[in-house]
C-alpha cells in the first residue's frame, strides 16, 4: 500500500472537517477523492501533502511514516486548482524549480526540464511567462513542475476545476494517458462524478468528513453502499421503497411478471434519450424511467396510457432510508423523501 492513513481527524474551530479517516490508497494507481464541496476531501489531500496537519492519526507514504515530516521533505508533487504558477519565472524555470532547490547539476536540470516540457507538450513555450499561457497550458506546466522532482506520489486538488468544460475534458483524457505512461501513484480531488468515473482506477467517496465508500468505479456505480453514494454518482428514482437508476427500469405497455401498474404522466425527449414519468399508485412521487428513442417508439408509450414497470434483474438498488450513519442522503425537506438527485449538481 502506497499511502496509508489511520485515525485521521481534523477540525477547524468547531467545524469537524475530517472524522476518523482510515484509508489505504494502492501504489501506482489513479485514485479519485470524490464528494460535494466542503466535504473534507481537499483537507484530506493537503494532510497527505503535509500542507495541513491532522489533529490526530498517522500518514504513511510508501512505508515511511510521514506524520511529522514537513511538506518539503515528503517528496510529494502537488497541483493546485488555480495553478499556483510562479508568475515571475519562465515556464522552464517553473518546471526546473524543484530540481534547482535540490541543487542538481545545471545540465541535469536542463535535460529534465526539457523532458518534462516535452511530456506536457509545452516545449515551444519554455521561455514564456505563465501569464502568456492559457489556463489549460498553465495547469500542464504545474503538472510538469510537480512531476519533475520524480515525486513518490502526485496529488491534484481539483486540477481542472478552474477550466472551461471543453479544456477540462481534454485534460482529463490527457491525465489518464499520462498516468498510463508515468505510473506514479496519483490522488486527485474532484466534485465531478463523471470525471471520477471516467479517469480513476479507484474512487473514494467522501462526505461530511467521512469516507462513505471506496472501490472501483464499477463497484461504486453498481453496488452503492448508501443512498448518498447512489445519488451522488448518477440519477436515481424511487420504486417500492428502493432507489434505482432510471435506466435500470423495464417498462411495458402491458402487464408482465413482477411489474407494478402505473400511468404515463409525462414523456419528454432529451437528445438521444426519452424520459418517462410514471404515476404509480402508492408511490409518493413519479417514477422516472429513461429509454432510448427506439425503445420508446417500439413500446408505444404515450402520455396518459397505462404502463407496467419493474427493475431489470441485477439492477443496483439501495433501500430508502438505509443510508450509512454519516450520509446526508437526499434532501429530507422534500417531505415525500423521493430523491431525484441530479448527478454532480
Amino acid at each position: 500500500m502506497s499511502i496509508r492513513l489511520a485515525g485521521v481527524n481534523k477540525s477547524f474551530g468547531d467545524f469537524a472537517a475530517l472524522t476518523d479517516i482510515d484509508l489505504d490508497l494502492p501504489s501506482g494507481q489513479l485514485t479519485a477523492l470524490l464528494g460535494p464541496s466542503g466535504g473534507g476531501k481537499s483537507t484530506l489531500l493537503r494532510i497527505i501533502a503535509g500542507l495541513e496537519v491532522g489533529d490526530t492519526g498517522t500518514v504513511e507514504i510508501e512505508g515511511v511514516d510521514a506524520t511529522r515530516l514537513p511538506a518539503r521533505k515528503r517528496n510529494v508533487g502537488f497541483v493546485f486548482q488555480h495553478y499556483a504558477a510562479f508568475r515571475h519565472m519562465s515556464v522552464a524555470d517553473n518546471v526546473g524549480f524543484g530540481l534547482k532547490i535540490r541543487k542538481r547539476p545545471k545540465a541535469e536540470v536542463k535535460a529534465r526540464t526539457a523532458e518534462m516540457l516535452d511530456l506536457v507538450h509545452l516545449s515551444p513555450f519554455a521561455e514564456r511567462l505563465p501569464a502568456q499561457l492559457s489556463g489549460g497550458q498553465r495547469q500542464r506546466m504545474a503538472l510538469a513542475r510537480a512531476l519533475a522532482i520524480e515525486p513518490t506520489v502526485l496529488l491534484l486538488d481539483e486540477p481542472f476545476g478552474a477550466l472551461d468544460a471543453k479544456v477540462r475534458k481534454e485534460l482529463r483524457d490527457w491525465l489518464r494517458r499520462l498516468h498510463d505512461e508515468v505510473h506514479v501513484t496519483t490522488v486527485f480531488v474532484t466534485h465531478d462524478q463523471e470525471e471520477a468515473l471516467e479517469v480513476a482506477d479507484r474512487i473514494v467517496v467522501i462526505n461530511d468528513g467521512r469516507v462513505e465508500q471506496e472501490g472501483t468505479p464499477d463497484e461504486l456505480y453498481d453496488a452503492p453502499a448508501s443512498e448518498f453514494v447512489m445519488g451522488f454518482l448518477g440519477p436515481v428514482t424511487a420504486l417500492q421503497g428502493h432507489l434505482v437508476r432510471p435506466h435500470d427500469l423495464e417498462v411495458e405497455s402491458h402487464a408482465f411478471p413482477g411489474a407494478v401498474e402505473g400511468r404515463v404522466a409525462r414523456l419528454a425527449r432529451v437528445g438521444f434519450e426519452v424520459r418517462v414519468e410514471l404515476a404509480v399508485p402508492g408511490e409518493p412521487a413519479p417514477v422516472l424511467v429513461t429509454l432510448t428513442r427506439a425503445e420508446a417508439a417500439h413500446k408505444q408509450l404515450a402520455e396518459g396510457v397505462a404502463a407496467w414497470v419493474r427493475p431489470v434483474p441485477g439492477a443496483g438498488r439501495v433501500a430508502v432510508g438505509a443510508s450509512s450513519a454519516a450520509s446526508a442522503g437526499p434532501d429530507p425537506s422534500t417531505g415525500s423523501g423521493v430523491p431525484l438527485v441530479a448527478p454532480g449538481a
Partner: protein
Amino acid sequence: MAEPTAPAAGRTGTRTRTVRQPSLLRWPLRIAVVVYLALLVVWPVGIVASKTFERGLSPVLEALGQPEVIFAFELTLANAVWAVVINTVFGVGISLLLVRYEFPRRRALSALVDLPLSVSPVVVGLALLLVYSGRTGWFGPTLERLGVQVIYAQPGMIMATAFVSLPLVIREVVPVLHEIGTDQEQAATSLGASAWQTFGRITLPAIRWALVYGVVLSLARSLGEYGAVKVVSGGVALRTQTATLLVEERYSQFGADNTTAAYAAAFVLALLAVVALVVVSVLRPSDHDR
C-alpha cells in the same frame, strides 16, 4: 524587467479610464482643481525656487558649499538611509506577520502600525526623549553608562525618522501579500523549498515592486522629517543639524546670505521630493504587474 512592464502599462491605461462627465461640469471642475493646487502647492514652491535664484546662481552654489550645509545634507542622508534600511527589514517582517499568521490581537497590531501616520511627530520626539534621555529618561542613563548616547546624537535621530516612516513600507507590501495569496508559497514548499528559499525565490520577487515603491516613499518622508528630529537632536550645527533644521535656523536669522542658504537648502529638499515622485510614478505601472 522590461518584459512584464510593457503589458502592465496597457492594462493600467484601460483601468484608469473613467466615465466621462458632461463637458458643462468638466471644465469648472478642472479649473477649480487647478486653481486649488496652484494656490496651495505650485505657487509657494515656485516662490521658493524663484527666491533661491533671486541673486543668480553663484550665491546659491556658495551657500550649498558651506561646510554646515554639506554636513547637514550628509547627516540627513545618513539618517534617512539608516531609517529606510531598518524599515525595509522590519516592514517586510511585520507585513508577513500581519498577512500570513493568525494570532490574538492581530488587528490591534495592524492598527498600531498606522499610529505614526496619525500621531504628531513632535509627540514622537517627546516620547523618545522620555525614554532615552541621558539624564531623565528611564532607559537613557543605563545606556549612557554603557557608552551609548541616543538623545542629541545620531541614534535618536534615526529612531525618530524610522518611527515616523514605519507604515509606508508596510502599507505598500500588505495588500500585495494579500493578493498573491499562499498558493505559490505552498507550491514552492511542496517542491522542497525551505522557508528562506521560499521567501527569497517566491515571496520577495512577488512583492518587489511594492517594496521599491514603499522604500522610495519612506526615503522621501525621511529626508523631509522635521518635528520628531528637532526634539531629539538639539539641532547643533555640524553635530546634529539636519537639512530641515538648517532651513529653519537659517531662515530665522538676519542677513541675505543666511536667507539664501535657507532657500537653497529648501530648494534641494523640494528637488529630492520631486525626484522621488518621478521615480514612484515611473514605478507605478510595474507595481500593478505582479
